[in-house]
């Protein structure tokens, strides 16, 4: 990250990016690795032995373990030193999140506490609020939760019905309403709650469990993540001191949405940790399980599954660490500690956060699904970890904004940034149209350098994105927001571009540093991912074009698109067998 200018959120769609400008897991330093090991050892030695009890709602263990995590510093990474935290870089906190995800439901308890629970106060609290609340939250003396969702308002967060009314003496706000599905609600001491003052001004409050009028409902019975506590937070004229208003009155949405951005990207990080675990247990099982007197790992269809799981995981891992790098860059240059500059820095990469969330959760769902399949009938049995992971995975596509909402956010964020003049989307789309009219397909290089073809495909994918999204904007103008199917397709192309590019940039960075032999697995994984993702982009492009044009115009556009989507075939079977061999030899996800 040598450059002096901050990378603009969403700019990856419009610009060429150099491998030196992205952070990759290979850039971790020794301290990072030690922190990751401490976290992993802690989860494996301390959490795993009691995980079953935690999943039966014995949350005394969760509290005890969270306190122990606090002693190790695992709760203070994102809290500045002056408030009792460690003030570490985002890479450190990403590593902690990735490794804690091995604790499944416990990982969520941890994540909700350090992430959406504590961060609103870190970024938007007043000096007094930070001094009062952050030290015990960072040390594990107290725990936090986040209360936004209501029975009647999920995706439509601003439709909340919880109201706040000032008491007659002017000292308190009285909050009344129900917040639903609140993670950590069994034991959290501090809740960040959203309510509308006088039924209008959407505002965030810091609500302590001990405040008069605060209670929780019974534990929910969930499909998965049973190891996390989920209850309703009941507010019955809850007496909240006026100094506990968090941020500005009427500006609660600013906190809510920015914290969700971070939550989305952290969710993707957790998904990466879970993907690695699913690959590990599936590879081990495949080596052990024999059918027809042969370990099933020797069957190519099993190998292919593991290879695809690994390639997708590689793309997701590359993506989340790249995004972490963006945040380290953006937040380290934060001037002043007021909420608005923090909000701006977080919001900068809102588009990337949505991309991470959708991609990470869908990769994990794919990986655990194939993991169950590799386990066969045993994968359907509760004694097997993969069965648990399969159920746990499902919620990721729903919470922190459904994947549908996040898909819609991707093009709308892009358009908003374009309207504000932050991204030259329309200019680029305009000049591209002329370029495409005269574009001649280039002949394939006889002996392309490693990744040369992949980079070319990413470049073409970006052109395809500009072309189709540009045409869609031109056609529908302000009505585009009603065309959700097209918006979804545009989002999917953007997601695949970020995924392919993150994987390829990471492999290229390793290639430049270590040479082809040492970087081989990364090259293979990146190539495998691009090879399977690129046809999906083409398909999405067709879908968009055929819904906005017809007749000759459609045929012209399709023939232009065809120039962008030509690529050389490779022996994908051989490539995936090579990848699978490495995974099966190591019995874990390796790069």
């Amino acid at each position, binding site marked *: 990250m040598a450059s002096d200018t901050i990378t603009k959120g969403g700019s990856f769609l419009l610009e060429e990016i150099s491998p030196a400008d992205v952070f990759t897991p290979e850039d971790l330093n*020794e*301290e990072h690795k*030690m*922190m990751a*090991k*401490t976290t992993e*050892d*802690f989860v494996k030695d301390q959490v795993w032995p009691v995980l079953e009890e935690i999943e039966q709602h014995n949350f005394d263990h969760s509290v005890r373990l969270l306190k122990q995590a606090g*002693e*190790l*510093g*695992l709760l*203070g*990474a994102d809290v500045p030193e002056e408030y009792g935290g*460690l003030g*570490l870089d985002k890479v*450190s906190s990403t590593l902690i999140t990735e490794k804690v995800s091995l604790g499944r439901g416990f990982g969520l308890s941890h994540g909700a506490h350090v992430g959406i629970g504590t961060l609103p106060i870190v970024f938007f609290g007043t000096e007094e609020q930070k001094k009062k609340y952050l030290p015990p939250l960072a040390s594990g003396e107290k725990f936090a939760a986040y209360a936004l969702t209501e029975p009647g308002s999920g995706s439509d967060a601003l439709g909340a019905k919880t109201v706040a009314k000032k008491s007659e003496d002017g000292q308190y706000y009285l909050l009344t309403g129900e917040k639903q599905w609140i993670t950590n609600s069994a034991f959290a001491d501090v809740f960040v709650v959203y309510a509308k003052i006088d039924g209008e001004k959407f505002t965030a409050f810091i609500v302590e469990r001990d405040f008069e009028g605060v209670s929780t409902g019974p534990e929910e019975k969930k499909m998965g993540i049973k190891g996390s506590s989920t209850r309703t937070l009941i507010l019955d004229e809850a007496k909240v001191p006026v100094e506990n208003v968090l941020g500005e009155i009427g500006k609660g949405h600013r906190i809510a949405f920015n914290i969700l951005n971070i939550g989305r990207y952290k969710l993707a990080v957790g998904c990466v940790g879970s993907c690695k675990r699913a690959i590990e247990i599936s590879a081990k099982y495949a080596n052990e399980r024999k059918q027809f007197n042969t370990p099933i790992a020797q069957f190519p269809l099993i190998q292919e599954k593991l290879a695809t799981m690994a390639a997708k995981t590689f793309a997701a891992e590359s993506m989340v660490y790249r995004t972490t790098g963006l945040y380290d860059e953006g937040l380290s240059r934060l001037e002043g500690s007021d909420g608005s500059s923090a909000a701006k820095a977080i919001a900068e990469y809102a588009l990337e956060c949505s991309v991470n969330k959708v991609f990470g959760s869908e990769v994990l769902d794919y990986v655990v699904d194939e993991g169950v399949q590799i386990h066969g009938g045993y994968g359907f049995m509760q004694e097997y970890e993969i069965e648990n992971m399969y159920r746990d995975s499902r919620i990721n596509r729903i919470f922190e904004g459904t994947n549908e909402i996040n898909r819609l956010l991707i093009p709308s964020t892009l358009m908003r940034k374009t309207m504000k003049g932050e991204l030259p989307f329309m200019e680029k789309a305009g000049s591209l149209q002329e370029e495409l009219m005269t574009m001649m397909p280039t002949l394939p290089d006889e002996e392309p350098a490693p990744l040369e073809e992949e980079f070319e495909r990413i470049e073409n994918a970006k052109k395809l994105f500009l072309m189709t999204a540009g045409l869609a904007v031109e056609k529908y103008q302000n009505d585009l927001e009603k065309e959700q199917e097209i918006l979804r397709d545009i989002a999917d192309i953007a997601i695949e571009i970020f995924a392919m590019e993150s994987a390829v940039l990471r492999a290229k960075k390793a290639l430049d540093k270590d040479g082809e032999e040492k970087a081989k697995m990364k090259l293979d994984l990146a190539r495998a991912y691009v090879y399977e993702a690129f046809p999906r982009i083409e398909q999405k492009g067709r879908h968009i074009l055929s819904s906005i044009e017809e007749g000759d115009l459609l045929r012209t556009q399709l023939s232009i698109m065809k120039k962008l989507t030509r690529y050389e075939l490779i022996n994908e079977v051989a490539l995936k067998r090579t990848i699978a061999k490495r995974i099966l030899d*190591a*019995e874990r996800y*390796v790069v």
Partner: protein
Amino acid sequence: MDILVCLKQTFDTEERIVIEDGQISDDGVEFVINPYDEYAVEEAIRLRDEHGGEVTVITVGPDRAEQALRTAMAMGADKGIIVDDEDLENADEYSIARVLAAVIKDLDFDIILGGYMAIDDGSAQVGPRLAELLEIPHISTITKLTIDGESVEAEKDVEGDVEYIQSKLPILVTAQQGLNDPRYPSLPGIMKAKKKPLEQLDLDDLDLDEEDLEGKTETLEVFLPPEKEAGKILEGELDEQVKELVQRLQSEAKVI
């Protein structure tokens, strides 16, 4: 109290051993502090916290072994010394003990701790050899340690039984499993470790001649244990089973 800990960086216990060209390959392998040495580090930190003083961790190994010292310092050790082993050829327990003795003779110490053996070569020799070279007493495989003034009391594991031993400082003890439960390096500890002093020495700094350090043993071959084959359960009448067993022990296993 001046406390020294000798430790070795070894393969992570979960690593699979791969042999390439007659050598154990360390390509892509994760390394850890030898688990028995980790007990020694933990015990040293506890002694320091109880009696005051300083914990110095010492290793002989390649550059990467610095990481093991940093980990020990993240746990709480105060400083580290690494002796580069690049000039050591064909080194064995004899050589390593001599190098350690050369480092330690210039240091003040009341007690030296180490693991009773390294999980990689499993020789359990370096500790006792080092004590001999330094002409101090040693107690191996301890599971409990109490120090009061000059007096040392230890419980020693002897194949499942316990021996109670008394001795005096200065002393060398080696740790057996059960001595303590090593702490995790905490995140604040990891950040602090970065700034703790780490001294790098080579054989020249120690006035050692590599020829005097050549190992007394020679490794002839490195190979993996044979893969375990499926067992066989004998069937039929008891008499027949016994006959078959004897016959197989004679002709197949050739043990009787």
